């Protein structure tokens, strides 16, 4: 009786244990099968590996494969533009942080030391090459190293002034092209979109001297502008003064000619009159003048008496 009850209990326990195991097994089996379901996003590519060997590329959408470890899929985003800073580092994708001197200093062809910051933009153009040709982690590292080597070789051919001014485009272009060439030579599956110079600065020790050159350039411009201002002020004044001199001469001319004309005219009319009655006119003119003159001067009239002595009579 008791034994039979125990048996029943044990068998119940066994049965429920078995049931629990079954559930666990079922879940495990579903999980196992679920490792063969993949979702690939629009901007991604999947690489289907069967026993580790590349089988084919999976396009975006839901994809079914054999479960792990028979088949696995590696998914790579092939649209995303990635960044690799050269000469500086990104912290949380934003702030440039100081790096060691040997990571940002370059030597120009005329042995000036300069700091350069450059940003490489790239995409993964061939996921299979990217994953299987260059060591994981080495691929991105390789971009920086390649870009650095291109900068070193490019800048060694330039003067420092060129680097700061006209050489920028060439630096960017050569770095992009050279980096791409090396990546292609290695077969990294990476396409370099652009190499952009972020900043070129002289080292801190000499930055003041470089700034002074900029100031000197500004000084030069200012001197020239000041001189221009001087000219702009001076010439109109000179023209005005010259004009004034001319005007004065013209006034003199006018005065002189007018006077001459007037006098000539007066003489001519007088002459006409005079020719009519010469003696009379002469006497009249003489006496008129005498009258005017004697009326205003002090006069001393000297008379001679019988003995011939002079007698003076002063008339005011």
């Amino acid at each position, binding site marked *: 009786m008791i034994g039979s009850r125990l048996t029943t209990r044990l068998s119940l326990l066994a049965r429920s244990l*078995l049931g629990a*195991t079954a559930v666990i*097994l*079922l879940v495990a089996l579903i999980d196992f099968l679920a490792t063969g379901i993949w979702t690939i996003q629009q901007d991604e590519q999947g690489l289907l*590996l*069967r*026993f*580790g*060997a590349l089988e084919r590329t999976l396009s975006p959408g839901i994809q079914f494969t054999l479960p792990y*470890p028979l088949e696995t899929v590696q998914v790579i985003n092939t649209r995303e533009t990635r960044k690799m800073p050269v000469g500086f580092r990104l912290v949380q994708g934003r702030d440039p942080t100081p790096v060691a001197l*040997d990571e940002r200093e370059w*030597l*120009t*062809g*005329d*042995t*000036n*030391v300069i700091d350069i910051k450059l940003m490489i933009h790239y995409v993964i153009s061939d996921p299979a090459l990217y*994953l*299987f040709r260059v*060591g994981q982690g080495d691929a991105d*590292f*390789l971009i920086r*190293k390649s870009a650095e*080597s291109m900068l*070193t*070789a490019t800048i*060694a*051919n330039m003067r*420092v002034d060129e680097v700061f001014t006209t050489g920028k485009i060439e630096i960017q272009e050569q770095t992009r092209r050279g980096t791409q060439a*090396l990546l292609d030579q*290695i*077969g*990294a599956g990476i396409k370099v979109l652009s190499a952009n110079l972020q900043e070129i600065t002289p080292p801190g020790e000499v930055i003041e001297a470089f700034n002074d*050159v900029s100031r000197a350039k500004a*000084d*030069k411009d200012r001197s*020239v502008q*000041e*001189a221009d201002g001087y*000219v702009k002020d001076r*010439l109109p004044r*000179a*023209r005005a003064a*010259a004009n004034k*001199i*001319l005007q004065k*001469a013209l006034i003199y001319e*006018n005065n002189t000619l007018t006077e*001459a*004309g007037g*006098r000539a005219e007066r003489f001519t009319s007088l*002459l006409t009159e005079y020719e009519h009655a010469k003696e009379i006119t002469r006497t009249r003119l*003489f006496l008129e003048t005498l009258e005017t003159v*004697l009326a205003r001067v*002090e*006069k001393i*009239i000297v*008379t*001679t008496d019988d003995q011939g002595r002079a007698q003076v009579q002063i008339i005011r």
Partner: protein
Amino acid sequence: MKTLALICVILVLVGLGATLFFFQVGESEFAVKTFFGDPRRTIENPGLYFKWPWPVESLYRIDRRVAITSPEEGEFLTMDKKNVLVSFFVAWRVVDPERFLVTVNDRIGAESRIQDIVRSEVGAQLGRFNLSDLVPLVEPDEGSERPEEPGGRSAGNPAPGDLLPALLSKIPEIMEGVSKGVGISLHDEFGIDVVAVRMKRLNFPNQNKQAVFQRMEAERERIARKYRSEGEELAEKVKAEADLEQAKLINQAKQKAEEIRGNADAEATAIYAAAYGRDAEFYEFLRKLEAYELFLRENATIVIPADSPLLEVLREGR
């Protein structure tokens, strides 16, 4: 329920068996199978392979991808005895896994050997070139005892027309030489192919840098001075030109004014002559009268003899 359990048990058993007797080789690796430690077979193609369980056969996996080794920068001496700081990187990959496994065992071992070999080759190659081969625009007197070239160009300020021959840095050439120089021995000794050796950085050692900075500073000062004196020169020139222009304008005006005055005088004289010429004696008479009127002003005193014709009427009383 029983069938489910059975399936699971079978799967697990198959799985266990598979891991004992089969292995995968990935796209990015080689596998070397050893039979009691003796390398027997190198597997180069990815896929699923059979092996006897350990300790009969064991497996070594070797990364076949390109690895980048970038040793610490080092000081090297150029042919003209200049110290330069050079850092470089080596891109390499395993091509003979068995040899690789036997000689250097793993990547860490390989890297230390590669560093040593490439570094000494870099040293050897750099020792065959002058500093000016690396940085072709360097001034000949840069920190050396080399006698200055007669008529050498002035530092940092090449005279226009002083066109240098197209000098290009020989860095790529040098690194190509390094790559060639180490290629064969690395391949034959360690089963490693060098894909590329590149110079990552070229600089001066810290103890020489101060001199470099001083030179840079002096060069900048010279350029700044040049700009300033150029500015002054230009300004002076422009101002002097303006002053000259001003003088010219004034003088021209003066000249013109004199001309006008002269012409006016001449014309007036002609007018007078034409008018007075008609009766010169009458003119003289008139002019005398005018003169009396002018010079006999109020404060003049005139002495008149009593027998003057002027006083004739007064005297005679008629």
